[in-house]
């Protein structure tokens, strides 16, 4: 079991700084997911941990040992690449055995290790095949197998499922999760897919433009986003954002827009200041006229059978996405009466920071 700590990591390419002082602690045996949009620095950070990129300043500690200046080959980590990076001229067996051969390990031990990893990943039948004769999912398993046989201190995954089709991605996601349970190693996983992050992680680190936007348990990030970026990034469909004005009224605040006027329990707002109200689609209820907070017109609806999504608009709201469990027949242009769940309102100040969590 391995603990990885990043202290004040900075990384620049020439004059361009891409990682701006990242601090991170990956606890032993945990599954940490680095998530963020393209170009946020998540892959760079993973490659820094792997030793494939040098840092400009900072410290990388693996089990308390500073490894910033130690080459990748000596850090004892294993990496699974997005493109699998299997050696095309070698058989699956040779691919998996390559790292062990580098260590001049006994042939019998190599065979045992490869066979047991192959059994774990259900690729025993393909050991003599070349990578070109395998499907995407099988190649991914071989890449994972190549990492497992080495008994590494930690596993690093660089968007390993992004080359697979949607169905296979779901299957592999489950397999990765159960693999983590079985072998129990420290794992760092990079993805831009927040669903992958939510389903796999013990801890999620959301990166934005080379900064850590927020780190925490998946549901903590979902329920208590620290800023508007995290709120918008975590969750699918995205959180709805509406510009409102805080209006003080006898010690409490009303959240006002052209479309609604909500009484809120928020205390530390500034009178007449503009905020962004965030509400997730599943926290908006379809109700009757009397109980409603606002009335909207339906642009279109997505009927998925077990659930329905409404895409609506009102006077000052361009698009409001509403989730409804079950089926609901409605026509374009029809009115819909909506009510916001009061305990699920998020408020963000003009600089994007959450004022709900304060």
């Amino acid at each position, binding site marked *: 079991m391995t603990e990885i700590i990043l202290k004040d990591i900075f990384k620049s390419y020439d004059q361009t700084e891409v990682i701006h002082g990242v601090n991170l602690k990956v606890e032993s045996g945990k599954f940490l997911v680095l998530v963020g949009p393209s170009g946020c620095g998540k892959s760079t950070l993973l490659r820094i941990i*792997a*030793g*494939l990129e040098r840092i400009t300043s900072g410290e990388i500690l693996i089990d308390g040992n500073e490894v910033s200046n130690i*080459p*990748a*080959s*000596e850090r004892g*980590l*294993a*990496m699974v*690449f997005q*493109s699998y*990076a*299997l*050696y*095309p*001229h070698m058989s699956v067996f040779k691919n998996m055995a*390559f*790292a062990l051969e*580098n*260590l001049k390990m006994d042939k019998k031990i190599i065979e045992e290790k490869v066979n047991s990893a192959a059994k774990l990943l259900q690729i025993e039948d393909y050991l003599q095949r*070349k*990578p*070109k004769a395998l499907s995407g999912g099988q190649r991914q398993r071989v890449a994972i197998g*190549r990492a497992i046989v*080495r008994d590494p201190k930690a596993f690093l995954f660089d968007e390993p499922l992004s080359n697979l089709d949607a169905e296979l991605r779901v299957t592999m996601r489950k397999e990765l999760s159960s693999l983590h349970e079985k072998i129990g190693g420290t794992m760092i996983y990079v993805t831009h897919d927040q669903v992958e992050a939510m389903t796999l992680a013990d801890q999620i680190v959301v990166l934005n433009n080379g900064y850590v936007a927020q780190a925490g348990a998946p549901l903590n990030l979902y329920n208590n986003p620290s800023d508007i970026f995290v709120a918008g990034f975590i969750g699918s469909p995205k959180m709805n954002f509406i510009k409102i004005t805080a209006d003080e009224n006898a010690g409490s605040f009303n959240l006002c827009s052209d479309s609604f006027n909500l009484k809120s329990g928020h205390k530390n707002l500034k009178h007449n200041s503009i905020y962004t109200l965030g509400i997730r689609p599943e926290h908006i209820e379809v109700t009757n006229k009397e109980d409603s907070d606002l009335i909207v017109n339906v642009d279109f609806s997505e009927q998925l059978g077990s659930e329905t999504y409404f895409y609506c608009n009102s006077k000052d709201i361009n698009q409001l996405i509403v989730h409804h469990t079950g089926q609901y027949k409605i026509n374009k242009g029809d009115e819909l009466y909506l009510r916001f769940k009061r305990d699920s309102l998020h408020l963000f100040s003009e600089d994007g920071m959450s004022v709900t969590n304060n």
Partner: protein
Amino acid sequence: MKNTRNQIKSFFIRILNIPFAFFMHAIDLIMWPIQKIIGVRNMPYIFLLPNLIFFGLFVIIPLGANIFFSLSSGDELLFAERELPTTKQYDELLTCDNYLNPNTCTEDFFWRGVYNTIFFVFFQVGLMIFFSVLTAVILNKNIIGRGFFRSVFFFPVLLSPVVVGLIWQWILLKNGAFNAVIESYGGNKVSFLTDPSWAMASVIFVSIWAHMGFYTLIVLAGLQAIPPNLYEAAEMDGTSRERIFFRITLPLLMPNLLVVFILASIKGVQTFDEIYVLTGGGPGTSTSLIVQYIFTTGFASSGSVQNFGLAAAASMILGVVLLILTLMQLYFSRNKESKHQEI
């Protein structure tokens, strides 16, 4: 400012367009009636015709004539005056008491050419592949002035073989530049081009210098086609640099190296001009290759009558060897394409 520049630019473009437009209209005048007569579908043949005529005149007809000369005997140049058919020339070329000893062959100069060519191709191709890979590997690294060095290694390929021969003759002659340097350091002059034991080595060296850039380029392209992820994976696997080279780079480079090997062999067998300028095939026949034998026998026999038939037969034999090598090259380059798709 930018607007004025654009106006000037478009003015010049319009001026330059006038002769082009005139030219295209002139072509149109000829092409329209032809198209009306033969139809649109047959027009491609009209466009192919000029090249086809040149190809026929300078390739097909000479090839046919060569086959005819190789199978007919006599000193006469005119077809009608030659005796036909005969295998006399082939018999003359291929008759040997001991094929390993050119002195026992009827046409010993031919066999000396054959053995010199084999020796030359073996060392030239082998060393050239070695140095091409070495150079390409270095040029593939992030070294300072990489673009400059890539050009430097490629420039000799652009030189005419005669220029290559003359440059190196100036350097390697007994009173040449290189010997001047050796002498200035207190050494003795070396007869690079006139000592039989040095001449072939000098010729091989010059040939490698002249052609290496082209093969380096092919190897460099092969190196760049190897995904960098594979090297990163190898690094993560704790692979030493030597092992990365021998277990990853070299096997993945093999399709390119095969193409280089075949192309260099074809080119090596055909070598003539630069050696002819550099040593004239000498001293004696020590650097005389098979193409020089064909040239001398067919066109430049001093004293005796030029023997077209014998030269034609020798060139037919050479042609067959080149055909085999070309077919191998085609086979391997197709194989290479499918291998690259695998990566």
